[in-house]
């Protein structure tokens, strides 16, 4: 169960980050902020979970990172999707849709 739990958490962070970065390039703080805002504060990434997730996806070759200096002179490390990362979005979304559909059927989430 704990293994499934960890896989679910890891998988959820991947699909969220990939979807956000498919819209535009962002730095770490911006990604965390977007997730919090788009979920109305229901989902929140701590630093200790956000950056390991980003670095894991860098290792997998789904993202690439680069440093850029803003007009205000601040250096930020931006992340963007690679072609490989873009290819992952659709299958990940599909498997999540299947998973949530199955969960809904079993646990009757709509009636909750």
């Amino acid at each position, binding site marked *: 169960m*704990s293994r499934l739990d*960890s*896989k679910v*958490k*890891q998988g*959820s*962070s991947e699909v*969220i980050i990939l979807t956000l970065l498919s819209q535009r390039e962002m*730095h*770490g*703080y*911006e990604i*965390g*902020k977007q*997730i919090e805002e788009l979920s109305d*504060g*229901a*989902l*929140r*990434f*701590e*630093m*200790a*979970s956000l*950056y*390991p*997730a980003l*670095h*894991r996806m860098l*290792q997998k070759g789904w993202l690439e990172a680069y440093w850029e200096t803003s007009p205000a002179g*601040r*250096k*930020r*490390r931006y992340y963007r999707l690679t072609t490989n990362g873009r290819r992952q979005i659709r299958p990940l979304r599909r498997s999540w849709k299947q998973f949530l559909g199955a969960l809904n059927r079993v646990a009757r989430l709509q009636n909750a």
Partner: protein
Amino acid sequence: MHDFRRLVAPNRKRDPREREIVGELACHLEEMYMELRRGGASEQTAFAIVSAAGKDLGPTIRRLRWEGEGGLRTWLRAVALPGFALALFYGVCNIALGVYWEYPTLWREAGLVLVSIALGFCASSFSKELGGGRMHRLWASATVISFQAVAECAMIFLVTPLELVRNTHYLNGVFAAFLWIVLWDIVTPAVALVIGSLISVRAFPPVVRAVTLKGTAA
């Protein structure tokens, strides 16, 4: 402006990889600080909130640094280091039990099994602290028996041919003795070490903190 790098890693020797990680985490804190300030928080309040968020980032920095390393370095750090360090302990315990019970007895073997379970647990737990995954932890525990296994195998495969040259009747009954040695000195402790490792994995599972739901703790 505050030095957020210092907040992230106050006393660290920084190699280029670590400097990049610290820089990125410092940028995160800086953004958080600026947003709080824009929201009307005083400098002190904003800095106190940011300091709390940036506290205890040491394990995160280590984790990020290790994730970027190659496989061999991970194996050396998370398998060889805890495995060989505890192999020395195992040797000492083995000798101590051998001195106390000069001849093999059930008590001696039971003691060795308990020691093996404990050392397997320790090796696996140390490996986790050093960034090891499930497989690294299992191998770290198995490595504890490596010195013993090498010594026993050397004895069996090197001494036997030499003895055979001297005495052609040497093999009579020696196979059963070898089997006994392998079973009690290698296989049994190895199984006990793996059991210790599995207990450790159960007690301290790999941490995957991805996303927190409001009102819950990840």
